[in-house]
């Protein structure tokens, strides 16, 4: 009797697998009964998965009660596949094991991401000890490893696909693209990326920033993505390492470390954060050109992200006094006479002022935002913010103008769309991090182009998932009185 049930399960699984594979391989539509299930939403992969696991666990319990220990263990493994993967198979790092286990134990994935979840887990397992990793990184193999959908649809491209592609990018040494894809996957809607996948993406981004000593990026990353114990620990550790006065206490750091995963590997970071001292902010006003330049050099010598915006405001105020008092102009005039030059001192002063603004903009970009509105800022700081805005929005606008829309012809490849969208998001995120009070400008500058592009992706490319992510991003940005707000809401529901 048990043998018949098992054969039935394997038969259904093979049928589902074959149907999905045939649809992708031949380009023909998938079987009508699967399409109808998805179209009418009579079944959701997630609900199906929960039901299946629940049935397995119930079966395990009944088997245990009846004294069938082997069956109980087997059904328990099928009922808790995530735990088996994360606690046994991935740490073991044996090639192929995590892949086939995922394919067997997550049959509901046939209705969602057909293969990417298995590839994602397989990559994580292989990275554990580096076994047979060279095969993964070879171009020919990795090309077919992650499929970014077919001409029919992109239903298989969700969080795990993006994360797997990002891992491959990182392994190939393309850290910039890996970061962008991980960031998109981390912020996908929960229905499109499992929490474990989003958590992994977030953890990778933390680690990537920390290994570059960019702890200000760690703090920025902690402001988004799934809430986790790792995020709590990383935030406190990064704030303490940057010497911030509002960082968590030693007790909070100890608690966070004890609760965070990978305590052995995070021990050195924990020790450093524990012994880090609070840095005294340099907010006393400085008088005179030499003192202001000295302060500027001091700020520039600090590690990236350690300078606070209050310090920048203070030094900007001192520069403003230097420019307005004529001290700088006098200095330049004196040197011109001594050097017997014939240049216009006003031009030299103006050029120097531009260079100061450029340097302050660089420091402002790396400093952590404190949500001070423009009305409270000095003229020089406003010029700094304007320069940053010009740089970032200029890049964003020129990128968005090149996005296909309207009657642009359909393409075959969906991967470039995801990559372009990841790049757009990365620039927008940089803008939000640097100038949060001007965040609305991102929508004003590129909202229309992005909306048209997303509609084109949905209609022409059948790229429902990437279109949904764009609609979701825009819907959060758009003001409620915007004429496109309702359209965005409708499109968001339609693409869900």
């Amino acid at each position: 009797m048990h043998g018949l049930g098992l054969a039935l399960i394997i038969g259904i699984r093979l049928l589902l697998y074959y149907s999905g594979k045939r649809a992708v391989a031949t380009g023909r539509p998938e079987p009508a009964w699967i399409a109808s299930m998805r179209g009418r939403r009579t079944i959701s992969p997630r609900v199906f998965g929960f039901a299946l696991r629940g049935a397995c666990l119930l079966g395990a319990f009944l088997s245990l009660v009846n004294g069938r220990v082997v069956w109980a263990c087997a059904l328990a493994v099928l009922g808790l596949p995530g735990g088996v993967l994360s606690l046994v198979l991935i740490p073991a790092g044996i090639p192929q094991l995590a892949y086939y286990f995922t394919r067997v134990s997550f049959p509901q994935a046939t209705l969602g991401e057909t293969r990417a979840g298995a590839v994602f887990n397989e990559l994580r397992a292989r990275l554990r000890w580096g076994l047979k990793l060279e095969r993964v990184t070879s171009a020919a193999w990795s090309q077919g490893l992650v499929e970014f959908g077919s001409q029919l649809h992109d239903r298989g491209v969700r969080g795990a696909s993006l994360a797997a592609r990002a891992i491959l990018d990182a392994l190939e040494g393309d850290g910039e693209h890996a970061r962008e894809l991980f960031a998109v996957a981390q912020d996908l809607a929960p229905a499109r990326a499992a929490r474990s996948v989003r958590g992994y993406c977030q953890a990778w981004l933390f680690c990537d920033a920390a290994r570059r000593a960019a702890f200000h990026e760690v703090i920025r990353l902690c402001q988004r993505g799934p809430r986790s114990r790792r995020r709590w620990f990383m935030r406190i550790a990064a704030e303490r390492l940057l010497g911030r006065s509002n960082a968590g206490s030693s007790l909070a750091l100890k608690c966070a470390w004890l609760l965070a995963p990978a305590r052995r590997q995070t021990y050195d970071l924990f020790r450093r954060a524990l012994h880090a001292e609070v840095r005294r902010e340099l907010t006393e006003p400085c008088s005179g050109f030499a003192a202001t330049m000295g302060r500027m050099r001091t700020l520039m010598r600090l590690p990236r992200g350690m300078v606070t915006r209050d310090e920048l405001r203070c030094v900007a105020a001192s520069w403003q006094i230097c420019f307005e008092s004529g001290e700088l102009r006098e200095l330049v005039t004196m040197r011109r006479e001594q050097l017997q030059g014939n240049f216009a001192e006003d031009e030299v002063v103006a050029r120097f002022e531009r260079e100061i603004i450029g340097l302050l903009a660089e420091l402002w970009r790396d400093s952590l935002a404190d949500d001070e509105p423009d009305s409270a800022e000095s003229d020089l700081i406003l010029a700094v913010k304007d320069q940053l805005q010009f740089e970032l929005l200029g890049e964003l606008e020129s990128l968005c103008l090149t996005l296909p829309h309207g009657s642009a012809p359909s393409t075959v490849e969906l991967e470039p769309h995801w990559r372009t969208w990841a790049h757009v998001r990365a620039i927008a995120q940089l803008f939000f991090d640097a100038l949060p009070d001007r965040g609305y400008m991102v929508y004003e500058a590129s909202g229309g182009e992005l909306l048209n592009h997303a509609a084109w992706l949905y209609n022409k490319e059948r790229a429902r998932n990437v279109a949904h992510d764009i609609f979701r991003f825009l819907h959060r940005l758009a003001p409620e009185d915007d004429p496109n707000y309702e359209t965005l809401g409708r499109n968001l529901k339609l693409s869900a």
Partner: protein
Amino acid sequence: MNRTELAENPFFVLEVPTSATRMEVERAGQKLLAQLAIGVTSVKRYKTPFGEAERDESKVRSALSALRDPEQRVIYELWAIDAPDESESGSLPAWGRALESIGWRGPCTD
């Protein structure tokens, strides 16, 4: 202007004070060029307020060229005025075992 450009200030490259005369600047530049030509290792690096930097013949030549122009020289003087002698680059040590903490023991070539 960024940190790298500031570190390439001709006064730092030639290691002369901002009050140096044209003759002193030329003499310092020619001396460095001669030392670099015969491969004196001690002159291949120089100190800046933002840490040590690499020095080569092209940097010395462009520094000399920049300081011959009074307008450019004044700008560079403003940036180098009262620059401290110490050469500390402020950077926090990176977290070397970061990727290990997510079970990533394979190579990462970034």
